[in-house]
């Protein structure tokens, strides 16, 4: 018998999925075109000490990513700090992506994050080592929680919201890369390139945690943010991922790859399958497949390594057992 939370999550998923079948659906159909097929690359990266810029640059070439002349915004996942854990996107992955962007001709590279729990960005930048990495590279960091904001119209309305204040440094970029850590997530099912976008919501406007997104439904919020921001690329840190009670209290789990792709649902669905979760059951991925991207295996073309090389089964909290592929 499912727990109450699993039941509610399943009901929430059904409601969000049902919203996609509404006529009209909660998004402007003309704004979205599903690709016939989506490229997702899995590139071996056995540790954080290898030349990650080379791995990511190779990904750019294999996936046809073009950042030449663009102002690129990198959005890593930085939530908390505790030694020995795998909570945050590793600073070397952030630095490697920045170097790869420069090598590919980006006009400017900016890194920004707005942690949902801690306000103290200085503490996180210093303890995670990200500040030192960016300083060495001469790359600007933007505190998205405290940036200037502009109220923008949302491109989908699963939350029932029509607009949201978003950071101007993000909005003025013309190429956004979501750079998550791959983790299980005790509310959302998993953290990957789409869930990572919670960090762009400014805490100084909406508070800590970003409770508006919880109250409006986590899957719905993920969909609205992804539809509105439309990141151009996902680069997933799955070198050491997190399983169990993520996004903070879970355990590190070595996987040894970086996942990349321009279709965020396709990247997240591939990562879900690798860690033993059914993308169709992840509350936001099923609805995303109606307008944001592909999640079906037959519509995803792999580059680099095959998913089977890394396939495993991550521990999840008891209430999320129903997400498993085998069930």
């Amino acid at each position, binding site marked *: 018998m499912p727990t*109450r*939370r699993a039941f509610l999550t399943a009901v929430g998923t059904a409601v969000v999925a049902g919203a996609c079948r509404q006529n009209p659906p909660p998004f402007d159909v003309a704004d979205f075109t599903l690709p016939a097929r989506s490229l997702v690359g899995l590139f071996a990266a056995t540790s954080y000490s290898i030349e990650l810029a080379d791995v990511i640059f190779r990904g750019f070439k294999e996936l046809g990513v073009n950042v030449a002349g663009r102002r690129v915004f990198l959005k890593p996942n930085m939530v*908390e700090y*505790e030694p020995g854990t795998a909570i945050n996107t590793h600073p070397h992955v952030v630095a490697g992506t920045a170097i790869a962007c420069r090598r590919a001709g980006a006009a400017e590279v900016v890194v920004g994050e707005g942690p949902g*729990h*801690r*306000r*103290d960005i*200085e*503490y996180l*930048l*210093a303890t995670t080592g990200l*500040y030192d990495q960016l300083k060495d590279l001469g790359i600007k*960091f933007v*505190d998205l929680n*405290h*940036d*200037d*904001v502009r*109220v923008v119209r949302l491109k989908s309305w699963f939350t029932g919201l029509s*607009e949201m*204040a978003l950071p101007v440094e993000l909005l003025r970029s013309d190429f956004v890369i979501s750079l998550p850590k791959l983790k299980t997530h*005790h509310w959302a099912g998993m953290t990957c390139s789409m869930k990572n976008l919670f960090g762009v919501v400014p805490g*100084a*406007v*909406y*508070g*800590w*945690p970003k*409770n*508006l997104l*919880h*109250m409006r439904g986590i899957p719905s919020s993920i969909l609205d943010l992804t539809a509105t921001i439309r990141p151009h690329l996902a680069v997933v840190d799955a070198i050491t991922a997190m399983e169990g*009670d993520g996004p*903070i*209290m879970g355990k590190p789990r070595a996987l040894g790859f970086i996942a990349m792709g321009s279709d965020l649902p396709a990247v997240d669905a591939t990562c879900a399958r690798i860690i033993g979760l059914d993308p169709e059951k992840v509350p936001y991925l099923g609805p995303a497949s109606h307008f944001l991207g592909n999640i079906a295996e037959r519509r995803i073309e792999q580059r680099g390594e095959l998913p089977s090389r890394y396939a495993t089964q991550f521990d999840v*909290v008891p*209430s999320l057992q129903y997400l498993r592929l085998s069930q």
Partner: protein
Amino acid sequence: MSSAAMDAQKRPIRSGRPEVTSGLREALLRLRNADGGWGYYPGKASRLEPTCWALLALARQSGAPLDIGLLQKWPREGDWLVDVKGAPINFAFNALAARTLLQHPDGTALAAPIATQLVRTRGLRLEQATALRQDNSLQAWPWIDQTFSWVEPTAWCLLLLKGLQESHPKSIPGEAGDRIRIGERMLLDRACKTGGWNYGGSNVYGQELWAYVPTTALALLAMQDHKDDPTVVRSLQFLQKDTNTERSAPALALAVVCLRVFGVDVGPFEQDLMSNLDLSRAMGSTVALASSLYALSETRHGMAAFIL
């Protein structure tokens, strides 16, 4: 004012770091926008929180009366001060702004209506959830309307309402006392097992979550009139012990302010604060620089903005 706070006021403060404080003052003045306010970072639009911190710090450092002219002219929506046009009203920063206004004799007229609105504001009541070890029926203060109650807005609202209840009891509605008691209960309920507070969740799925130094300092300031409460005692111990592990200017500055109010020797923490200002300076973080200036200054104004 509690006896510990009075003792803290009388005790000579080891500060007088003139080079550091004058450097912080100059940095703050450079960060000031043409409209007279401060953004969070250089070149950013003026916002309520950094403006209040800058005003409080500059007044404390100089010993001059706080200049509330800017807050008197601040864009309003009814009684509320508007932080971002088109965005929800931020209750935490309205409470901070009202508390700032109260540092000037003419500020009460603008602060009291904000406080009255805050008395009528409460977080959503949620169903009890087995995954969370907390009492979801306690409706303290949210950051914005239609959301749940959290530590930081509750702490700022308690500081404001407790202050007004003592200084101008007739300026706020009679139910303020009940709201204060709910806010206190909520803070005590959300404290972490180690003592201290994070954003407002102490245990999820049986896992004890970590307390943070800045939110602990703020919540303790709001609970300074309950210094014998076991949760407050434990949280003060956490702050004294763990401030060393969170070496950032924003954390250390609030910790110094709080520990001073509780009458604790802050010498070592002040030293740490002065050694950890580089990143704040590099980023040009107004709140970090201003709270540091406030913490490190020694003037006749004492810690007035934070003492009940």
